[in-house]
């Protein structure tokens, strides 16, 4: 997570081991080690994924089946009533819309401001750039909890509590350092000569930003947006602290409504609601995960 989304076309520093010809011996006779690895990996993947599959299966069970049956068994009958109840109980649609607004707003700020800061630090350069970099590094290390009490007090004094910006501002602020880092590392790859040529043609810093840096950064933007969206879409702590009214609740808060009084919970409907709310992000992730995985990996190899 430390780094730049490399342009997709940049070749890997090292060849993929599977691409290099393997010793013939290993191909003809599967070794004990190989089989054992596969079994261990399979077991670990089951532990990682089965709970999610179980979540989905449970959302299709009847309440009676859920309360009395064996949790590992397949449902005796598949029902979609839970989904209907999930939509009746909460404000799922509104929660999803709110999450969408907050995620979009924060991402817009993160991408635009992150790119601007990285441009100033990496391309323009200035005397105190090292100091500014250190300032931004602080945001990666300090936990978000430090901001809760001060922001709560500040927001209440300027009547910003219970608004979209009350969530968007801290989410964007705390995500900014990592994005600046990602953009800066990417900007290093844009050859100096490109800028110099543009300068000779009379382009100033603004036009260079708009005509060269911005269009070249599309891949990095995808990585930044995807990684941040996961955290913002799922944010609980800021939303829980700064938002009180039902109309502004995002998905994580909306889900809490399903817990009934006295801890009596309609579990099958809750699980149906969970399935509905994780679907948008899951779809985006499954479609774009190659880009994200590649971004994370190319970052990691450079340390």
């Amino acid at each position, binding site marked *: 997570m430390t780094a730049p989304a490399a342009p997709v076309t940049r070749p890997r520093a090292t060849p993929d081991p599977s691409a290099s010809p393997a010793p013939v011996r290993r191909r003809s006779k599967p070794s004990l080690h190989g089989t054992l690895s596969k079994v261990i990996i399979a077991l*670990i993947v089951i532990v990682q994924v089965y709970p999610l599959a179980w979540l989905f299966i449970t959302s299709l069970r009847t309440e009676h089946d859920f309360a009395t049956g064996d949790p590992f068994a397949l449902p005796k009958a598949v029902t979609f009533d839970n989904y209907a109840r999930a939509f009746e109980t909460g404000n799922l649609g509104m929660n999803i819309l709110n999450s969408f607004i907050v995620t979009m707003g924060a991402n817009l700020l993160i991408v635009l401001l992150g790119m601007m800061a990285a441009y100033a630090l990496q391309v323009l350069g200035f005397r105190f750039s090292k100091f500014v970099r250190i300032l931004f590094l602080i945001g990666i290390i*300090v936990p978000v909890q430090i901001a809760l009490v001060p922001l709560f007090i500040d927001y209440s004094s300027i009547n910003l509590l219970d608004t979209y910006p009350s969530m968007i501002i801290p989410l964007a602020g705390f995500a*900014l350092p990592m994005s600046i880092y990602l953009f800066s590392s990417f900007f290093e790859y844009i050859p100096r000569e490109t800028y110099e040529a543009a300068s000779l043609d009379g382009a100033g810093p603004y036009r260079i930003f708009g005509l060269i840096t911005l269009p070249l950064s599309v891949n990095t933007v995808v990585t930044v947006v995807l990684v941040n969206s996961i955290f913002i879409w799922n944010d*609980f702590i800021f939303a829980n602290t700064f938002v009180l009214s039902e109309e502004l609740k995002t*998905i*994580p*808060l909306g889900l809490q409504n399903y817990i009934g009084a006295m801890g009596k919970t309609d579990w099958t409907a809750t699980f149906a609601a*969970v399935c509905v709310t994780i679907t948008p992000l899951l779809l985006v992730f499954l479609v774009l995960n190659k880009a994200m995985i590649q971004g994370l*990996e190319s970052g990691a190899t450079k340390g």
Partner: protein
Amino acid sequence: MLPNRSRLSVLVFLLPPLLLYGVAVLFPILQSLFLSFFSWNGISDMQFVGLANYVRMLTGDDIFWRSFFNALGYLAICLVLQLGGALLVASLLTSMRRGRELIKTLYLLPAVISTVAIAFLFVRIYSLEPVGLLNQLLHWIGLGALERPWLSDINSVLAAVSAPEGWRFTGLYMLIIYAALLSVPQELEEAARLDGASRWQLFTKIRFPHIMPVWITTTIMATTYGLRGFDIPYLMTNGGPGQSSELLTTYMYKTAFTSTDFGYASTIAVFIVVECLVAVGLILFMLKRKADA
């Protein structure tokens, strides 16, 4: 530096991001530090108390210490699951030929899901009545004696709230470590293999030293995230039963927003920041000493 940039253009690009960052991150840090020297419930006048909050925290507050040690336990469990699991899977994955992309995607899946959903899910997995996945599994493999309501048993609750956080992010760290392992030069491994190095030697003498810089980054990431862990314990048990799964973060949150003791809550928040900085410093120091030796 760009040839014909101006001082104004630097400011145009730098000021907006600094402004947002200052408002959301830098200023609140200073404000917390400031508030930690006051006693304030948010309504009556603020009262300067000097270091009294710090003295109270360090010498007179059992719950604080309880939460501190719980947080260390939580961190330890997260680190073992995240870094240990990540390293194991990443190493095994390098020797696989097919299906690696699929496994990477599946393994990363839990990281996409919100903590509220994960908390719900694990409440059910741990449940005893009706029987959840964990207790049913124990029953099947003949360890029925271990069956228990994991979240209301004070001996198991801390481990039970820590595990989901570990479970959730293993995939992320695995990806990073896996990518680092791929960058280990093949010639080096080949040469060692010809010299008769065992798999274990290959791993400890070549692979692991080679990925050390990435390992440090991952350890720091996992540690700072572990120390700020909040959502899952807060949602699953709210620190209970008693204080047996209270973390510093949940304690701070309750002090601020349930007891509305803003001054003391800020003191705990400052402690959490210091704790993160010390942890990062310690990791860098220990690894540097090891590298020098």
